[in-house]
């Protein structure tokens, strides 16, 4: 399998404060990779750098294309979908409008894809003409994932999808993510604090601490290593 995303020597800053101190990552095409770490370790910052939403140095390549100089809105056209922390739903717009917005950079017919999303997430179909802000937390997260899929992305970045959700709902959500990865061949990178569940889904894992990668390898290996689990993942 070839590498779809390569990150080299990524350093990022918030004003004067350096948040990332030289991160190296690579994602195999078709894999699910998880980036684990505690609050403030730099997980979100890594995702935001990939999407060019903050200032950074280093090299980020997607499918061989240099991303550094591309604005956030242009990255989408390469097939990178980002589900931000806090879901980023358009709360005042309807569920269906949210889905249409996910595909707004596409110029082909999207009605089939909207139906496909309703098949993945039947709850969304029931609520298609409701304002997204009135949905429950779990439904909003489903909507955020569905909106990202409407792009027909090659790579989907998810920032703490489990945040604030009940365990059962999180389990459902991760099941769907696995299905999307297998059936639609979408490469997934998921940032999580909920390490146990993320390691079940992922094939590869990275552990980040205070802006540095401290561990990487196959997900199974990391979840089987008790020392790592105790010192970095807290379970």
């Amino acid at each position, binding site marked *: 399998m070839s590498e779809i995303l390569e990150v080299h020597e990524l350093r990022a800053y918030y004003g004067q404060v350096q948040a990332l101190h030289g991160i190296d990552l690579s994602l195999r095409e078709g894999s699910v990779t998880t980036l684990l770490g505690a609050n403030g370790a730099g997980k979100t910052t890594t995702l935001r750098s990939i999407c060019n939403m903050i200032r950074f140095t280093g090299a980020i390549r997607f499918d061989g294309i240099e991303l550094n100089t591309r604005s956030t809105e242009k990255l989408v056209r390469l097939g990178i979908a980002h589900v931000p922390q806090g879901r980023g739903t*358009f709360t*005042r717009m309807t569920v269906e409008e949210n889905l249409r917005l*996910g595909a*707004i950079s596409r110029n082909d017919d999207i009605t089939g894809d909207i139906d496909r999303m309703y098949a993945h997430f039947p709850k969304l179909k029931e609520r298609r003409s409701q304002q997204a802000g009135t949905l429950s937390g779990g439904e909003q997260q489903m909507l955020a994932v569905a909106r990202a899929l409407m792009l027909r992305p090659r790579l989907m970045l998810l920032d703490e999808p489990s945040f604030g959700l009940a365990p059962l709902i999180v389990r459902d959500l991760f099941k769907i993510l696995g299905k999307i990865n297998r059936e639609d061949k979408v490469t997934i990178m998921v940032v999580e604090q909920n390490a146990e569940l993320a390691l079940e889904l992922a094939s590869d894992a990275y552990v980040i601490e205070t802006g540095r990668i401290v561990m990487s390898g196959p997900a199974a290996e990391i979840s089987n290593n008790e020392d790592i689990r105790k010192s970095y993942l807290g379970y």
Partner: protein
Amino acid sequence: MELLTNQILAGIATGSIYACMALSVVMIYQAIDHLNFAQGEMATFSTFVAWQLMRWGVPYWPAFILTVTISFGVGAAIERGLFRPLANASILTNVAGFIALFAIVNSVTGMTWDFTIKEFPSPFGSSQFLGSELINSHEAGMIGVTGLLLVFLYCFLGYTKVGLAMRAAVSNPESARLVGINVGWMVALGWGLASSIGAVAGMLIAPVVFLEPNMMGGILVYGFAGAVLGGLSSPAGAVLGGLLVGVFENLIGTYVPGAGNELKLPIALALIILVLRFRPDGLLGRNVVERV
């Protein structure tokens, strides 16, 4: 009874101009969260452009369309050049920017076309509308054009891809960027549209109040009042608010003893404050309760 109908219709006619101004105020408020104090002056400037074009021999409707187009460009250019750099500045910086814009546009208009009153033609004439005693054809025209404008905006925002993108950029700029929307251009588009709507309002009211550089001053106050009454988050609310202000104003002037021309404005505004006391987000404004 006839007097009442007459006053209500006349109120709707002037109200439709307030509605246009309210609409342009709301367009910009939605895009950047600030009230544009210079909206009226920009509309006056546009009206002078139309006047000048007709002076040069351009017939009314081509001049009308050309003016709307030019106003769109000027509005978008003002956003790009002046307010985009202020996007992250404090509220007061922005307010200062708007006041500066107000003064600059006003003086440029005065310098270019001087301060004497000018006549501005109406494409609808001033005969009785369909033989009715109640409303003249220009008033009917104002209502008609405002109605068309509203239908156009409704279709544009609700049913086109660009309209959808524009609403998304307002609703959540960061997420809009993440789905591939160029938020900066959407804001400029909002300014362009607001400026065009203002131009329409100016060209429609000019035959009634005569054209001069301070023509829109009072009208913008009514427009603001209408926008706030209807709800700053709702274009339909802005139109409703504008119309209600127009009707209030006329009815108070006619029926409240001693109110006359001097007091009808303050009484109308006092009524609005009373309404807002009970509905702070305006009549159609939305205060969305969000689940977390």
